């Protein structure tokens, strides 16, 4: 993908400015999910978009490509495991799957909020990982 690098100072400068804000906004969306519009899916998609933008504008060498792919796969799996893990923890403590009240916190309200944060983070990780993986598999130069 390195050969296809745009080498355009305008896109590079704008992207360099944009990417950190995109990522922070993605984290805000994930964290804000249970109170307003947003959530794990949207946040994950925005985060993946920031990395896709970086890959398109600055290009990736073969080594980075491999690292990106491995990271994306691991994130996708870890997200699912985090989500399922929180659900299982609720079950182990005698509640139903994803019954946050059963989480080991004193106050059910805290338990509920932290439970939702965990779930949204899991969704965000899985979505970001899966989207990035799709991008790498379709646009990447590695043929396997």
């Amino acid at each position, binding site marked *: 993908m390195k050969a296809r690098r745009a080498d355009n100072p305008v896109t590079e400068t704008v992207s360099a400015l944009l990417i950190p804000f995109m990522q922070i906004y993605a984290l805000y969306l994930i964290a804000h999910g249970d109170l307003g519009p947003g959530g794990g899916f949207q946040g994950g998609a925005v985060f993946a978009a920031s990395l896709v933008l970086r890959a398109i504008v600055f290009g990736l060498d073969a080594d980075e490509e491999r690292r990106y792919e491995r990271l994306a796969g691991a994130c996708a799996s870890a997200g*699912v495991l985090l989500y399922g893990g929180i659900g299982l923890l609720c079950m182990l403590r005698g509640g139903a*799957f994803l019954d946050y009240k059963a989480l080991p916190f004193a106050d059910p309200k805290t338990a509920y909020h932290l439970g939702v944060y965990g779930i949204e983070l899991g969704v965000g990780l899985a979505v970001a990982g899966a989207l990035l993986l799709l991008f790498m598999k379709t646009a990447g130069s590695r043929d396997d």
Partner: protein
Amino acid sequence: MTEPVLSLTQHIPALLVLVPLLASAIIPFSPARLRRAGGTVALLANAAALALASALAVETFRLGRVTYNFGGWAPPWGIEYAVDPLAAIMLLLVAFVSFAAAVYSRAAAGAEIAHEKLPYYHSAGLLLVSGLSGMIITGDVFNLYVFLEIASLAGYALIAAGRRRDALVASFNYLILGTIAATFILLGIGYLYMASGTLNIADLRERLPHIYHTKTVLTAFAFLMVGFSIKTALFPLHIWLPDAYTYAPSPASALLAAAGTKVGVYAMLRVTYTVFRPEFNASVVPMKTILLVLSSAAIIYGAVMAIAQKDIKRMLAWSSVSQIGYIVLGAAIASQYSLTGSLLHMINHALMKAALFMCAGLMLISTGAEKISDLRGAAARMPLTMAAFTAAAVSMTGIPPTLGFMSKWHIALGAVEAGLWAVVPVVLAGSLLTGIYFWKVIEPAYFAAPPEGHIPSGRGQAPDTPAPFWAAAPAAALAGLGVLLGLAAWTPAAGAARAAGELLLK
């Protein structure tokens, strides 16, 4: 605040979906040097799912109905899992077939799939099982759509794992049609929600009868039926199926043909009999006539196309189109006998088609045979594989004393019971044609001399290699089970199917 503590037995419905899902997320982390780790994890997860499904079936037949409320929210607000006898049978069937496919895959999937792709193959297989189980078990129509998408995406990936480039095209075609189907289903669910304000299936059943004649509900029904017809590959919406099953790796074809399309039919049954009541089909829409015509056409057209095929897997794929016709026909007639027959045929087709696709994989492994013409004299070189193939073919054709005879007999009886005499010759002709296309494979394998210097189509001049035992064992076991279930007439399977059918008609 004291909450009732749930016991392990009460968690089974959730665990049944969760175990394969989490296992599929674990597999990509397995170290590359442990080449078979993915297969082993998949096998263990499937074994666990089979144990859970068995326990759940026992529990369901004891209690009549088992439910599970997610997050502690009571239905109809929260998402509910609801298991009735029909769902319990289907869950057990899916778990059993995918366990057999996992045994096969661990031993022999490497023959058709590149090694670096194997972990992802096993992962996608588990995801498919999780999605299909979810579709069966859920009591919420939107949740049904979510699981449908999980199963579909896993299915596209499984097909694309095939060893030829054609697999990618087949997978892409299926992806386009599958996405149209999923969109239709989502639209249907949206319209139902718009009209009734609820997504819970039991709740929908209560609320819909008052608004059966509204355009919104009729539109919803039409979208749902067309969507599920694509997913089950009901004629004439079957066009994605032959390529997909031909180019997918054999164990994936076995899993998709056995479990994938069956769950589509199950979802169709749920919509027509549980979400909507049988009266709706009888008095509001002429669904029965439409399905009778389409499924009869599917039986004959699929079988005729199967006779015309030269490729083993493509023949089996067209056979699926024909057999799905039988299942839908039995469901469309909607009498006690025909529904029992339809459910028995789901079981029969799932077990037998899984066995047949595994046999096709074994033939490719041991002799490189892909075309029917490569099989001349093959019975001497692979007696167990051909024996399993023949047993499964006999049950698929419907020769007594196999399970296939029981199922087709019930469908024919149901047609007579309902006074639909025109359907009886279709059932019989379909059986006859099924016999013809299987005989085209069995006859040269047993009675023709192997040609000198013939190079099989599947690979070059590589010598015969014996198929791994653990790949042949599940195929033989599945085929044997078909004969066994038929031999013990009025087996628990028949009784269970009857009970499930009775509940549907209520």
